[in-house]
């Protein structure tokens, strides 16, 4: 219900304004504010995943040209159908442009999007018509989207905007939104907990492109009245989208509406009053907005107001001790992110367990970084229910081995089998789905999310039936229920490690990889950690632990593999391995012998 309030406010505000405005100019301002809010909402869908597109004018251009050309053709296609066709072409193109960059980290998506509208504009201007007039058909208003009353465009625009906002709001409260936020926050971790990042980014880009193409039809019909390549493919389209989205709140559903409500009237009134003498006044408004937002409130107005409100309410009603969040009447404290479940395919895609097959088989794995041979010919097995310790000096290749098992790195040679199936060619999300979970040496997290949501992303990635309930239950089992909605940064080291464990366990893994879980913990916390692990795991779960705290480790595991300079130097029962002279020489040191004798 609470989420419907902004929709009602928007419709009410537009109705109020539309009723009072009658001058052509004022109606035009209102129409354009709606058009650009729509464009911003479309653009922002990609920003939810942290992807900044500078090429959305390719999609507006396609939308405008598709419907104009179809309308001008002998078939005399209605702009409504033209809009649908343009949306389809834009969606297809988005997939073609986006896909190759979605597997790359960093700036590449943004860079790739720059050249795309430029190519299209050049090709259209050179091989087609740089300018197309839209045929005038006053005889059938609805068929030709040709309304004598300018107010009708306001209402059509409002309907389109509401639809776009509804799509965006729906994304926010489904696993789609969780996936996009996870990607924006920490893409590597998102893949490690089963989020199919390429698929989700593609889906967001397709919807975003299609909505942009639809917006262009309205823009041309209601305002431009002629399709000009320079304009519909032009960089200004992107500038306005960026401005309204960033001013309102990047990635936020309602951000562009707020941004457009501020910027579009300001830019147009400036243009109307001083535009004659100052030709670049409109653009300067957008440019100044971008610079000011970048320097002052990079997250935008909507989140800034929300935080200001929380702080104010906190000052008035007292704030909770941790997380700096507020409980009170006006700001009723942090609430769990809503998650709307949509019935889907049966969840699990696990491999059946053949009897007597080891859970993990590492066969002759080798890896080098340049001239640095990190792993050579590493072979070992872990049976169901077995706990294996992996020890060795820093740089021995332990974490590299984990990274190869979880698809963060690719081995140069050798193979890894999980329950008898070679997994070397599977990507990280697939391996997680099969039942391989890990924690990280340097704890990883989605820092913009609550601990509950951190676990929920992993539950969604594993297609757990009721992700929110399962995540909350998991937090209760590990004793973090009180902190479910705290800020991630407010957690202690031990709590962070426990949260990592909860996140790894929510998928009910069959192979659990723990990378230095005890680092930074005191003696009591160390004992408690392994107790928690035992409490959570199934008896059939195989566990591999990398740990430098060898004394704690050997009490927990049943066998140990010792690595040095990428080779296995000893393996077997813990006592045998730690008294192996080679292991003592390479790793434990003679002090260890002293300790061992003392005990």
């Amino acid at each position, binding site marked *: 219900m609470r989420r419907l309030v902004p929709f009602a406010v928007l419709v009410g505000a537009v109705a109020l304004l539309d009723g009072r405005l009658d001058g052509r100019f004022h109606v035009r301002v209102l129409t354009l504010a709606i058009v650009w809010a729509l464009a911003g909402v479309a653009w922002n869908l990609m920003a939810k995943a*942290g992807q*900044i597109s*500078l090429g959305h004018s390719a999609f507006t251009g396609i939308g405008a040209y598709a419907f104009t050309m179809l309308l001008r053709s002998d078939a005399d296609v209605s702009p409504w159908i033209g809009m649908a066709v343009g949306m389809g072409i834009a969606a297809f193109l988005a997939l073609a*442009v986006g896909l*190759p*960059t979605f*597997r*790359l*980290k960093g*700036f*590449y998506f*943004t*860079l*790739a999007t*720059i*050249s*795309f509208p*430029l*190519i299209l504009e*050049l*090709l259209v201007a*050179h091989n087609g018509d740089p300018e197309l007039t839209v045929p005038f058909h006053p005889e059938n208003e609805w068929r030709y989207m040709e309304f004598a009353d300018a107010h009708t465009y306001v209402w059509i625009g409002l309907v389109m905007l509401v639809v776009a906002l509804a799509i965006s709001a729906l994304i926010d409260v489904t696993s789609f939104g969780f996936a996009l936020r996870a990607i924006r926050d920490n*893409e*590597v971790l998102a*893949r490690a907990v089963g989020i199919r990042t390429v698929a989700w980014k593609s889906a967001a880009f397709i919807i975003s492109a299609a909505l942009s193409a639809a917006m262009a039809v309205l823009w041309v019909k209601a305002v431009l009245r002629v399709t000009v390549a320079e304009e519909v493919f032009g*960089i200004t389209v992107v*500038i306005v989208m*960026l401005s309204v989205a*960033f001013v309102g709140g*990047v990635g936020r559903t309602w951000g562009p509406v707020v941004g457009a409500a501020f910027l579009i009237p300001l830019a147009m009134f400036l243009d109307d009053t001083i535009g004659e003498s*100052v*030709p*670049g*006044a409109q*653009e*300067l408004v*957008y*440019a*100044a*907005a*971008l*610079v000011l*937002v*970048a*320097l002052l409130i*990079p997250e935008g107005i909507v989140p800034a107001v929300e935080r200001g409100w929380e702080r104010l309410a906190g000052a008035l009603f007292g704030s909770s001790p941790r997380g700096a969040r507020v409980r009170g009447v006006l700001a009723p404290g942090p609430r769990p992110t809503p998650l709307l479940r949509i019935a889907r395919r049966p969840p699990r895609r696990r491999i059946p367990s053949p009897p007597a097959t080891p859970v993990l088989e590492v066969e002759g794995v080798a890896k080098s970084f340049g001239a640095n041979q990190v792993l050579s010919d590493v072979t070992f097995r872990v049976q169901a229910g077995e706990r294996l310790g992996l020890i060795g000096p820093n740089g021995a290749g332990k974490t590299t081995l984990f990274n190869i098992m979880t*698809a*963060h*790195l*690719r081995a140069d040679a050798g193979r890894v089998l999980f329950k008898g199936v070679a997994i070397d060619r599977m*990507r*990280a999300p697939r391996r997680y789905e099969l039942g391989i979970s890990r924690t990280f040496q340097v704890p990883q997290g989605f820092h913009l999310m609550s601990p509950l949501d951190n676990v929920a992303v992993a539950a969604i990635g594993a297609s757990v039936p009721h992700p929110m309930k399962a995540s909350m239950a998991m937090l209760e089992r590990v004793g973090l229920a009180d902190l479910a909605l705290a800020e991630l940064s407010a957690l202690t080291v031990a709590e962070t490690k426990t949260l990592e464990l909860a996140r790894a366990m929510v998928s009910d893994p069959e192979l659990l990889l723990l990378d230095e879980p005890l680092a930074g913990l005191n003696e009591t916390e160390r004992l408690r950690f392994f107790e928690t692990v035992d409490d959570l795991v199934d008896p059939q779960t195989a566990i591999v632990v990398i740990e430098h705290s060898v004394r704690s480790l050997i009490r927990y595991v049943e066998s140990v593999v010792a690595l040095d300079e990428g080779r296995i130097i000893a393996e077997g029962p813990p006592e045998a391995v730690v008294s192996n002279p080679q292991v003592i020489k390479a790793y434990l040191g003679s002090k260890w012998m002293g300790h061992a004798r003392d005990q």
Partner: protein
Amino acid sequence: MIEFLQFLVPGILIGGVYALLASGLGLIFGVMRVVNFAQADFMMLAMYLSWAIFAGGVGLDPFLAAPLVFAAFFVGGMAVHWLFVRHVIGRRENHDAQVILTIGLGLIFQNLILIRYSSEPRVVAPSYANDGDFVGEIFISRVRLYAFLLSVVVAALLFLFLNRTRTGRAIRAASENWEAATYMGVDIGRTNLIAFGVGTALTAVGGSALVTFQSITPFVGLRFVVVMFAAVVLGGLGSVGGAFVGGVLIGIIQSVSQVWTSAAVKNVWVFGLFLLILYVRPNGLFGKVQRAI
């Protein structure tokens, strides 16, 4: 064959200028990981400055005025860095802020120039603007040759600066690993400031080299921004030497494409190549391909 050479030679000449334009962008990205979308507008501003010096009474030849332009934009670039850019570098969360800040700055430059000088194209035509010499059957334009030579000289000076001076070595260290550089006593704030100034000035001199055969409008930067990005990505993001090689290659491809397609779509080749490089060799021709599995 001769037709091919007739396009190849001018391609190399203009490629030298692209190399200079791109080296500034590459230097700035290398040191502070900022993709500066305003870089092409620094070029535009430098073209207007060259024009003002040439047409505005002083009458100084743009090639001779290049050191003045360099000095002016070295100072100007440092000012822009100090006022704006330094507030959005460093943290990963600042990526979005960098993009919109530099886009916003570029737009402000464009529109201030539009307000001051209108959109009327400006031309700098020294007396030898249409001169040239035939080498065999290949015509070599005088102004383009000078532009190329200017680029070569600046490239040599840049090489000496980066390798032989303390500040230059600090810049190289910072671009390799700025964290390690700070441990070695490199003052990262000062290095960023100087690198931004030098990067801006390099692109600005590229603008002075262009001005004798490229008419100037407030939006001329838009025509070069992708050329610069393509050169930088082709050579490997963050590598100044790579940006030089990338620039020359882009010039050659753009020019030689005219053997097959019309001059009007020569940039389609550049933009298409840019996309292709991003897709198949995102770390440049000489870089290692790193993909998440």
